[in-house]
């Protein structure tokens, strides 16, 4: 995929997204005074559907907003929640910033590393879990806190963290 060319974009009218998401994007670009304002929400929603922001997603979003692939990548690389590679089904994000650190956030992270057998930004071989050490997630008074995908879990201990991982494991096997 070339960085600057928009010639490789999909044919107008065709989409790589589900009909629901494509319809959502059609609406989203009309909401703002300028179409480009929809870029960040579109990247997030594309990531939610595909699991990451793929080259094809970048191309189509660029086309929908009438901006180049380079423009899209330029923005994409700035935001820490956006990724261009797949992660596990459950992305375990452990906060170790000051409030969480004081209540055992580092230990929760070490515990997750140990239990999952993976490090920061790694994925288990079965593709079930990824692990990430993240900056403050806004749950400081309920520390230590973890986000699994978009779900918050507060006031964790190594024991309750184990239970949480088990919960997700059994959710996946259902």
């Amino acid at each position: 995929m070339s960085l600057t060319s928009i010639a490789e974009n999909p044919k107008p009218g065709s989409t790589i997204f589900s009909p629901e998401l494509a319809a959502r994007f059609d609406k989203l670009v009309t909401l703002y005074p300028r179409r480009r304002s929809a870029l960040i929400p579109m990247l997030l929603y594309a990531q939610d559907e595909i699991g990451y922001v793929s080259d094809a997603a970048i191309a189509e979003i660029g086309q929908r907003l009438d901006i180049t692939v380079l423009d899209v990548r330029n923005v994409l690389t700035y935001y820490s929640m956006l990724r261009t590679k797949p992660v596990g089904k459950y992305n375990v994000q452990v906060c170790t910033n000051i409030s969480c650190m004081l209540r055992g956030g580092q230990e929760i992270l070490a515990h997750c590393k140990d239990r999952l057998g993976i490090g920061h930004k790694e994925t288990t071989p079965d593709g079930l879990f990824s692990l990430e050490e993240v900056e403050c997630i806004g749950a400081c008074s309920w520390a230590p806190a973890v986000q699994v995908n978009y779900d918050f879990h507060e006031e964790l201990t190594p024991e309750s963290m184990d239970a949480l991982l088990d919960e997700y494991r059994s959710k996946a096997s259902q």
Partner: protein
Amino acid sequence: MPRLVSHPDEVKVVSRRFGRGATNIDRYIELDGYKAVRQAIEKGPEWIIAEMKASNLRGRGGAGFPTGMKWSFVPKQSEKPKYVLVNGDESEPGTCKDHLIFLHDPHAVIEGCIVAGLAVGAKTGFIYLRGEYRYLLTIMEKAIADAYAKGFLGKGIFGSNFDFEIISQTGAGAYEVGEESALMESLEGKRGIPRIRPPFPAVVGLYGGPTVINNAETIASVSHILNMGGEAYAKIGSNRNGGTRLFCISGHAERPGVYELPMGYNLKKMIYEVAGGVRGGRQLKAVVPGGSSTPVLLPSEIDIGMDFDQVGKAGSMLGSGGVVVLDETVCMVEFALRTIQFYQHESCGWCIPCREGTDWLKKTLTRFHAGGGEAKDIDHIQYLAENMLGRTFCPLGDAAAMPTIAFVKKFRQEFEDHLNGKPCPYAKQQELTLA
């Protein structure tokens, strides 16, 4: 679900609907919701701004700028459309108040946003939440849809001649976007880097139009101010610091939580009475009074009123309301390192003093904490931080430098204890905190 706390000293204004089902629009109306905005439509912009000025409400994002004055700076006539932008990109470590506002009282944000629009003559409002708050966006979007369905948003709101639209979205993970000009860049679909000012957003903001940008807590306070009257609201607080504030107590407090207390409430009392003191009866070592960017206070410095002026006089800042309590087991070098790691990670890279400064501080503090420190490093850390101050487009550089300077000045001995390859002298005590 974040745990709610309460204490008899609390004055519940912004938090009065927390835990009472107010995400439901009918319940919100039952609890005095959408009264203030009707009154605002009737009485007009000058009345709104006069009440806001009388309230002495100061921006809850951290800077503490008087809200009424901010609104009055927006020009009455403008060729370009005007906008209201609600900053819910809550990212300052130690701060989790807007989290609760969006979770429990989304309509208060909508109502405040409409009132701000009426005051400045804007027809569009944006509510921008941080990317991690996706579940709160779902709540917010539902609330907005319900408000449209009732005719509270859209054309001719509340049967008047006014139109008002609200669009909400999240970011995608970036502390810097909480800074007002970077926030506008992000909302325009760009990298969140700051803009040079002047011109200020009130004159040239979003899409080049005059823009009012307020923190979510500030906006959520607006309807309460109009309902009780600006003067009555001002009286709850201290001199020139009107009303209440959501204080997010975290760290080694016995009862951490978000407490709503009058502006000017004593910090020592807040820690020892409201939050139940230091966990396990340990000794207090330090307090970060207003989020990670605010200079640390020693136990001898906390007998102060928590308002913008009094904390400023004590050499720190009220900031975003994040009160972080540190007990005797904390290694201050490690704490300084974790703080600077954050700012290094979040520096957008636009200004060299911030980009390079945070990187050098992180490298030096990492080596230092690992036992590779040299005596001259201590002064170098302080010198480096002092030279970042005031030399960047946005306050992120200052936010990294200010706490660092305070850590070195107030805890120099702890830095010296790490010299000569000695392992961290506090490591053993830290293990105790986990027991």
